[in-house]
């Protein structure tokens, strides 16, 4: 069977987990087996995972699992994966998923694939997964040689379909080892979709000339429900916080729509964003390398174009709702 570790936030299933579970169910279909979702810690709406393809939803309700500890979570997942006879274990390609992926691969003697971006091929009895490498500049095929595979699923790899009915959540008990770490503080910006999970990202660079000009970027992001980002020079000069930096040494993202404003498109920046489905580039320099990587380009003064774009979107949104 295929075991999917579903993530929660504030006691509710995270939206990204619907995709992970849906992927797990498709993979299970391919292997002629079934998909089981696993929830660690308190959660009130785990049954919803059934609608996205989980035949069974297991939950270890223990409060101790509410705080993330890679060592403890690995031991719990390993124990359940072994009991259930999991052949594939899937985690999200998130901060927590990446923290346990390597550990799980050792604990389960399983070949790891970080950031699979589509369903694998089954060749000669072995699973071949594709994943981006070289910060998105290439795609690699990774063959898992072991009986068990552990993979993290890159977000936005496939569109989850709500196909079935909810299922009853089955509470299970496992031995939870003592943690050697203590989470003392968790801080999250409220009301903003984190960059790795954002469907639309509005990003700006040095062409903005001054941090005080960011209002037009935020207005555009607001009308699109987008998350804002920036290029490395902007983060390095302190114009915007570091956690907004996308690119090779910042966050790699793959939203449906990436809008780059006043960013020339250095190779290091492109590496972190070129997996975006659609790229719009707004730049005054017709020679900006970013235009070569773009689907749509607008050449001109961003201080005129961006507000016009925002107005056009407002008009569109009001006529389509």
């Amino acid at each position, binding site marked *: 069977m295929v075991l999917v570790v579903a993530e929660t936030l504030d006691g509710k299933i995270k939206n990204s987990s619907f995709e992970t579970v849906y992927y797990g169910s498709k993979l299970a279909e391919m292997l002629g087996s079934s998909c089981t979702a696993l929830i660690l810690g308190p959660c009130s709406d785990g049954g919803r995972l059934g609608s996205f393809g989980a035949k069974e939803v297991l939950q270890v309700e223990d409060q101790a699992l509410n705080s*993330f*500890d*890679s060592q403890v979570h690995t031991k719990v997942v390993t124990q359940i994966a072994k009991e259930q006879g999991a052949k594939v274990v899937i985690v999200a390609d998130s*901060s*927590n998923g*990446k*923290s346990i992926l*390597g550990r799980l691969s*050792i604990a389960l*003697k399983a070949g*790891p694939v*970080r950031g699979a971006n589509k369903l694998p091929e089954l060749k000669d009895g072995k699973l071949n997964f594709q994943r*981006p490498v*070289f*910060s998105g*500049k*290439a*795609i*690699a*095929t990774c*063959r898992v*040689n*072991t009986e068990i*595979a552990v993979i993290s699923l890159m977000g936005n790899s496939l569109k989850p379909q709500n196909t079935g009915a909810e299922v009853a959540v089955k509470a299970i008990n496992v031995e939870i080892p003592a943690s*050697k770490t*203590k989470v*003392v*503080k*968790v*801080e*999250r910006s409220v009301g903003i*979709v984190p*960059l790795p*999970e954002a469907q639309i990202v509005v990003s700006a660079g040095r062409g903005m000339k001054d941090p005080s000009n960011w209002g037009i970027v935020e207005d555009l992001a607001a009308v699109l429900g987008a998350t804002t980002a920036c290029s490395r020079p902007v983060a390095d000069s302190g114009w915007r916080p*570091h*956690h907004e930096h996308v690119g*090779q*040494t910042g966050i790699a993202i793959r939203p*449906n*729509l990436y809008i780059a404003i006043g960013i020339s498109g250095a*190779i*290091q920046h492109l*590496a972190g964003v070129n997996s975006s*489905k*659609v*790229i*719009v580039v707004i730049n005054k320099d017709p020679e900006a390398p970013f*235009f*070569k*990587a*773009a689907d*749509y*380009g*607008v050449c*001109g003064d961003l201080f005129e174009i961006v507000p016009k*774009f925002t107005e*056009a*979107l407002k*008009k569109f949104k009001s006529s*389509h709702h």
Partner: protein
Amino acid sequence: MKILVAISQTPETTARIAFKNEGTIFDTNGVNFIMNPYDEWYALVRALELKEQKGGSVTVIHCGPPANEVIIRKALAIGADDAVRINMEPLSAHAIATQIAAYAKDQSFDVIFTGKETIDYNESLVGGMVAELLDLPFISHVSKLVYNDAVASVTRDIEGGEEEIEVTGPYVVSAAKGLAEQRIPNMRGIMSAKTKPLQVITPVPEESTADYIHFQVPAAKSSVKMIDPNDMDELVRLLHEEAKVI
């Protein structure tokens, strides 16, 4: 404090990425190699800062062939005390983690650093694997690490925020941006690096769990569609009707 820093060699960030032998091997022709930025700028420098504050030693470990000693000497020039090279072609995260864990097992390091990922394979796997092999706590994507007496306060990046974690006893961390500021080796460092100890070790046996069998460069985008800057309604229309993203 006794600190181990795992360093890796990667193509430089501007390298042209191409493959040979029918897409099975990375084409190193004309590629310059560097120390993986996350290992050099953040992991190594924070390790050195901790040593400067609390005393002890910083050892760097690298899995690679003799030619890779350039990056090891650079780590020594930046300030590491000694180095270990496992003489091998590093073919997978599992192969590397196996060697690092085998070396570190009896050495009682207080902290083991890796970078959050290498900029070539972007796997983010080695740190967690080493921690699991040694049964140690592992905190990934760490952007801050300070000590209050014997307790390490470690801040890690999470989606849309950060998490602060306390840990006592030995642990493994992977370093992200913000953990330290890059250091450029000075002439004295470069000179002294030449005589610092560099131990070469034969790898322990390891069985590969996953292999890269093929690589391809994604197809270039078809040419960009330029939009009249005075007609943003057209851009909106295309994003809605053609690209279907709004």
